[in-house]
Each structure stands twice: as structure tokens, then as C-alpha cells.
């Protein structure tokens, strides 16, 4: 008798299960036919890092401080660069990243003092070999000379502005008879954003060393 009850119980639960799956059968399928239908990328999607092109300079702002290279846990960033003739700003001359090693942790992005790194949205990358060394400067090299010329102009302009400001401050200070204090304030003002970035980069470098 007990045996019969068990078999019956088993049968009933079997039919309960079947009814659930049967109902599921008539629902809209949740499977996405991938290569034909693509889901939209998440806004936070992370892929290989890239250098941001800033509107004001139409170029990246990497000052080759090597902070990202030092923090990278996969040791996959390789940067060279330094002082460029004619401008105050330091520039990277080589910036490669081995995407095959990158763990997409984002530490390099966090640490960059000039905020010039971001994730790209590459997503269906495939290759026939293991060489995933990406040259992040590639899209900027053609433009680099022009950038330097423009940067020199920008720096000269900034320097001239600074001078004018200092002169004005001095004149004002002379009138107010508080010369010492105000002149000091004028000197402490930074020429522009770029020089500041250079400084921060330098600091990060010292900090890391």
C-alpha cells in the first residue's frame, strides 16, 4: 500500500513538473540568436584602455609619468617619453599595452593624474596569434607635430597672460600699499591647466618611486 502511494505521489509530482515546463513552452523564448541579434553593450562596459582625445587640444594628455605603468598588476603597459623640444609639457613617445595580459582592473585609469585614460568599447576582438600589443598612440602620431606647434602657442599665450596678470597685480598692489602680499599671490597662480598637469604627474612619479 505504501509503495503504491509512493508511486502515485511520484507520478503526481511528475505531472506538476510537466505542467510547469509545458506552460513555459508557450512563452516567448529568452534566448538571443547571438550573431544575428546583438544585445546592447552595457554603458559601463570595459575593454582595452585607450587615450582620450581632448577637444581643446585635439590630442591626448599623457605626460609619460609612468604612474599607470607602475600600478598595472599585469605589467602590460609600456611607456616612453619625456621632455619635448620647444614646449614645457612632457609627452609620451611610446605607449603600448598588451591586451592579452590586461585584466581590465581599471587601476591605471584611477591613477592617471591627467585623466587621459578610459576604457574603449572594443568587444568582438579575435586574432590568429597572441600578439595583442596595441599601440595607443597610433591615432595621434600624425597630428603630433601640429600639436607641439599649437601647444607652444598655447604656452606662450598662457605665459603672456600670466605676465600681464602679475603686472596688473603689481600695479594694483602699488596703489594699495600691500605690495608684498599680493605679488606673492600672483606668483603662486598657475599659468594654466597644462602646467598643473605636469606638476601633478611629476608628483605622482616621485610618490611611486
Amino acid at each position, binding site marked *: 500500500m505504501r509503495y503504491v502511494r509512493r508511486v502515485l505521489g511520484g507520478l503526481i509530482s511528475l505531472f506538476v513538473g510537466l505542467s510547469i515546463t509545458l506552460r513555459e513552452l508557450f512563452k516567448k523564448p529568452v534566448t538571443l540568436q547571438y550573431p544575428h541579434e546583438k544585445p546592447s553593450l552595457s554603458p559601463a562596459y570595459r575593454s582595452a584602455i585607450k587615450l582620450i582625445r581632448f577637444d581643446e587640444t585635439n590630442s591626448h594628455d599623457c605626460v609619460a609619468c609612468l604612474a599607470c605603468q607602475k600600478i598595472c598588476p599585469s605589467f602590460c603597459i609600456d611607456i616612453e617619453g619625456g621632455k619635448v623640444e620647444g614646449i614645457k609639457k612632457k609627452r609620451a613617445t611610446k605607449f603600448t599595452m598588451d591586451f592579452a595580459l590586461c585584466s581590465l582592473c581599471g587601476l591605471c585609469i584611477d*591613477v592617471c593624474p591627467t585623466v587621459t585614460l578610459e576604457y574603449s568599447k572594443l568587444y568582438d576582438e579575435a586574432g590568429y596569434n597572441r600578439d595583442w600589443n596595441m599601440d595607443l598612440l597610433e591615432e595621434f602620431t600624425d597630428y603630433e607635430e601640429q600639436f607641439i606647434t599649437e601647444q607652444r602657442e598655447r604656452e606662450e599665450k598662457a605665459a603672456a597672460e600670466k605676465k600681464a596678470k602679475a603686472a596688473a597685480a603689481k600695479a594694483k598692489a602699488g596703489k594699495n600699499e600691500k605690495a608684498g602680499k599680493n605679488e606673492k599671490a600672483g606668483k603662486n597662480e598657475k599659468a594654466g591647466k597644462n602646467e598643473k598637469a605636469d606638476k601633478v604627474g611629476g608628483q605622482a612619479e616621485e610618490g611611486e618611486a
Partner: protein
Amino acid sequence: MSTEPNPEPNPAMAPDGDPEVYYLNMGPQHPSMHGVLRLVLKMRGEEILEAEPVIGYAHRAHEKMAENRNYLMFLPNTSRVDYLSGMIYNIAYCQAIEKIMDIEVPERAEYIRIIACELNRISSHLLWFGTFLLDLGGITPFLYCFDDREEILDILDSVTGSRLTYSYGRFGGVTMDVDSAFVARTRAFLARMRDERLPKYRRLVGDNVIFRERCEGVGVITRDVAFRYGVTGPCLRSTGVAYDVRRAEPYSIYDRFEFKIPTRVEGDTMARFDLRIEEMEESCKIVEQAVDGLPEGPIMPAKPKKRYRPPAGEYYFAVESARGHFGTYIISDGTDVPVKLKLRTPSFSNLSSMPDVLRNTMVADTIAIVGSIDVVMPEIDR
């Protein structure tokens, strides 16, 4: 079949002259062994006389890697220790460093962390649920729960940018803020999970007589065995011990939420199954409370430090992962590179109890038993 089961012979595994005794290797490449676990079984007929788990196939030297990089650089490793609940491990490591260095975490970041961790716990339990039933021969539930899990992964993807190896936590906060779309999606998921999916799983699987017959009384972990091996998580709670780090030593802001620590007394496979389903429900409750209470504000401290140098000493910090008590043990000498970083992973202790649990069971139950303790091999090997 092998006659040389282990390079370091375990006396219990030695052939004892009985011609009927033979050895069976289950894994490391067995379709229903979890990851790359190898079980050497000493058997007579269908009965297991002795079992020995062999580990080390997924060893990646995470602990050693920690010793030659600074604290920040270890962050991406943490979610690769246990890739099924990577968020919990990632956040746990951040919390350990924060505790050592007295870093204040903004309120909003704490709430986001709780939401992310509990969602991750649900997704981990869902994956276990699917694969466990797959091992037992039920394919349909696997498809249903992967649909749910996919939704969680999408939700987490929308804020972290990745699906498994999150690297979402930073010392002092999280990398990205959540928006109203995230909150709405989470709420929708919770409603669907509680109203539709969990009751369905109960009816489809939990109440199924065939399934119950297969699981009841199988693979009993006694309280004594659990204590001896340091078994934690649902496996320990299935023996009637209400130990959950979230309650026993509340970390983060878990003391603000109301949730139950479900327990069972049977200690068998069925108890562990029921527990995990209930735990998903409790996690849903926590997520709901956290979403309701989500405050506005920053997600990182105003001035995050550039370098992290914990004062010299030894530190231990534990959290409740999806599998049990996960501890981070750090020995610092005051520099920014740890002298030793030991990860206490729950699966290791849980698996260690297997020889005792598997003794005198049938080989056909092995899959059900090992599946029910929910081991993740990369977590054991690290």
C-alpha cells in the same frame, strides 16, 4: 581505474589485500565533477570504502602573487579566487584593508556594496542550483535558473562593466555609481524572483518526489564532522548551527538589515538544497531593504590615499561568502607589499570533510553529495 592513487600515500587508501577492492578515479575531467576536482575512490562493488579528494589542478598562486605586488595591485586577483561570487571576495578584500587602515567608507558605497554582494550571492546559488540538478539529470531547471542568473549578471554588468571578474571595489568605496535604471531593474528582478521564480523552483524541484527520494538522507554531514573540519556556510547550517558571519560578527552594515539565518537539522543533501533556496529569499530581502534605504552621497572618500601601508602586524577579516566563512589574513611589515596574504576559503574545509561523509555510501550518490556542498575548485586551489 588506477592502482597508484596518490603520490603521498594515505594509509586508509592502501589496498588491503582484498581482491574485490578496486580504485576509481572521478575527475579531474568528469562531466559532473565541479571544475577540476579529482576524487579517488576506494571501492568494493558499488560501495565506497574510502574517498580522497585530490586538488591542485587549478592552482594559480594567487597568494604568492600577493607577496610581490602592492595592496592595490592585488585587487583584480580577488574576484578570480572564486569566480562565481567574485564580488563578495573583491569587496571582502577591500573591507579588510579598510578595517586595518581605518578608512571611512561613504554610506552610499556601503549600500551599493551590500546590494552587489547579495545579488552576487543569489547568482552563485542559482548557478549551484542549476548545475546540481544537471548533475542529477534534470536539464530543464538549469535553463530556467540561468535565465535568472543572466538577469543578475546583466544588472551587475551595467554598473561594473564586467560579468564575473568584477574589480568593482576600491579601498574606501566602489568604482562606479548606480543610477535609477539600476535600482528599477533590481526591484523588477526581486519581484520576479520572489513572486514567480522561487515558488516555481520549489514546485518543480523541491517538491518533486523523485528528487526528494534521491536527496533525503543522502550525504549526511554530522555536526561533529562539521566542527572537526571547519565546515561553514550552508553545509554547517544544514546541521543545525546558525553560524553566519553576517550575523555572528557583523561587518559592513549588515547589522542594519533584517534577515533570517535559515537552518536545518538533517544535515543531508535535501537540507542543503532547501537552505540555499531559503537563503536566496533572505538575500532578496536584504537587497530590497538596501535598495529602499540607498542614500545619496559620494561613493568614494573625498581624498583616496595613493599608497596603502598598513602598520606592521597581523590582521584577520572574515566575511560570509556564498559558500561559507571567507577570511583574509594579512601579515604586514609596514611596507606597501604584504609579507603574507592568506585567503581562508570555505570550499577547502567543506571539501575536506568529504572522506568522512562519503565513507560507506554508494558511488551513485557521490555526485549528489559532492554537488550539494557546492565546491568551487579555483577557490580551493587559489
